[in-house]
């Protein structure tokens, strides 16, 4: 609406009141302090810290068996802290892919509708701020909180691992972990945006929470089943050519990739297991003569670039949806 005006105003005001914060950061500050003090955040951080400690424990007890003589990932012992498990408790990476959505949903599902129900929305929006400040600030605040939490946990796992196994990570391993944490942040941001969208769309916080959880369950449980059904119906006959079989495999994989969790898993596995060279089917011809050696970080990033783009695109779509629906929303008191 008044974007150009706001830019002029911002620069004009900054000179006049350099002592005050910009309203946007005022909201971000307030939201962050709200999140940090809330019970749900404390509960979440306890759950996630516990599970991460659990996965670290299994990783440490099994790391000895995880190293095999001809393992191309053998040189990346440190990364195994994030991926190794004995089957009883999932690894750190799997935990994040499972709990990340929960984290995003629980911080965003009542972002707007709770303000509406408390009667604060119309009061805040009658202040001289742009409407999008509110959702942008909420998003930035939640993402800051999540980011700090994820990096804290990641560094904790690294720190404990360092003490326990006594082998420091190489620079590349460290960078791989950083990228892994960044990808996790994008993944959680997707769920956060989805839940903010539902919080605008649905008046009741319970409805929006349920809608988010339903989508999460759909993608984590039912989507695979549906894909399997489709796969069975479409599977090529036993006499199909290799070409057809590969095309079929590619198609199935692409269907799977509509699930954000699949994108996230592919991205993290490639980043944390440097020996992963491709995420699609490979023919014998393509693999012929290849030495099973790890890829450098840059190449691993290239392999997962489409996945990353997909994740970011999904996040942006959700954000755009919530942006549009919020800007046009009529704000009544309660």
């Amino acid at each position, binding site marked *: 609406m*008044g974007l150009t005006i706001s830019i002029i105003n911002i620069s004009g005001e900054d000179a006049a009141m350099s002592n*005050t*914060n910009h309203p946007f950061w*005022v909201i971000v500050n*307030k939201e962050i302090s709200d999140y940090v003090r809330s019970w749900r955040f404390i509960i979440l951080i306890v759950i996630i810290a516990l599970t991460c400690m659990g996965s670290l424990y299994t990783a440490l007890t099994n790391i000895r068996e995880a190293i095999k003589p001809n393992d191309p990932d053998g040189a990346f012992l440190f990364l195994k802290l994030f991926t190794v498990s004995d089957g009883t408790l999932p690894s750190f990476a799997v935990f994040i892919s499972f709990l990340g959505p929960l984290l995003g949903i629980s911080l965003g599902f009542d972002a707007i509708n709770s303000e509406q129900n408390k009667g*604060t929305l119309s009061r805040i929006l*009658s202040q001289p*701020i742009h409407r999008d400040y509110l959702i942008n600030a909420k998003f930035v605040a939640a993402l800051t909180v999540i980011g700090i939490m994820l990096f804290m946990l990641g560094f904790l796992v690294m720190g404990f691992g360092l003490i326990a196994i006594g082998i420091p990570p190489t620079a590349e391993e460290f960078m791989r972990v950083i990228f892994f944490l960044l990808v996790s942040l994008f993944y959680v941001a997707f769920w956060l945006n989805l839940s903010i969208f539902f919080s605008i769309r649905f008046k009741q916080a319970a409805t929006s929470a349920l809608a988010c959880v339903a989508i999460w369950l759909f993608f984590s449980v039912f989507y695979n089943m549906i894909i399997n059904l489709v796969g069975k119906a479409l599977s090529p006959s036993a006499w199909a050519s290799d070409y057809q079989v590969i095309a079929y495999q590619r198609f199935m994989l692409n269907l799977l990739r509509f699930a954000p969790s699949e994108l996230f898993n592919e991205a993290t596995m490639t980043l944390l297991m440097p020996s992963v060279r491709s995420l699609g089917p490979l023919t014998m011809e393509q693999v012929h003569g290849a030495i099973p050696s790890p890829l450098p970080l840059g190449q691993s990033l290239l392999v997962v670039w489409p996945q990353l783009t997909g994740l970011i695109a999904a996040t942006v779509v959700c954000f755009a949806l919530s942006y549009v629906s919020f800007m046009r929303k*009529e704000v009544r*008191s309660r």
Partner: protein
Amino acid sequence: MCQYVIELTGLTKKYGNFTAVNDLNLQIRKGEIFGLLGPNGAGKSTTILMMLGLTEPTTGSVKVCNIDSTTHPIDVKRKVGYLPEDVGFYEDMTGIENLIYTAALNGIRKKEARAKAEQLLDRVGLLKEADKKAGKYSKGMRQRLGLADVLIKSPEVIILDEPTSGIDPAGVQEFMDLIRQLSREEGLTVLFSSHHLNQVRQVCDRVGLFGGGKLLAEIELTDLHKTEHGLDDIYNQYFGGGRSHE
């Protein structure tokens, strides 16, 4: 400055087939207390939302202090304080923290904001409860805190949408006196929306009778109207039924 603080021309708002506000023309002068009187669902709140740019008019224009509310809502909101019906506050923050937050959103410095908030809380009679959580406030206290919240940005116009709903009679009286006082002392223009005939009669200089999204009549409230039942008769003429719903 401008002769008319609020100018509505040909304002219409439609929700599908339903017309909430129908071709409304209205001018409000500087410094007056204008009462928007009408039954529930007459389109009073919708009109107010359009004045603040919180919803877009279907056709027509709203100008507040010569600024178009639809295209420049931020500039309008700098000058207008709005107290919604049944206002809400952040319940884990104290009364004064809520006020300081609003002040910060208006770009007021922290020190200044605190001093001003204390002064306003004193004015609305909540200074003792300043450090109480807003969640513990009663309805009447919340409404008074709302008034302080509206005033903290030093507005030129304040818009009050059914500000007295849910307050006991003594509280209403106090609230009305406060509004009258404020308007006179600070030269504020007040738009007061209500369905209580008595309250409107008490404080307003001019009244617009509102019904079915239309302005049915504009009445200057002279002393005659205030003492006798002049306004009642006009109200009954349009809306029928008994006197005010006090």
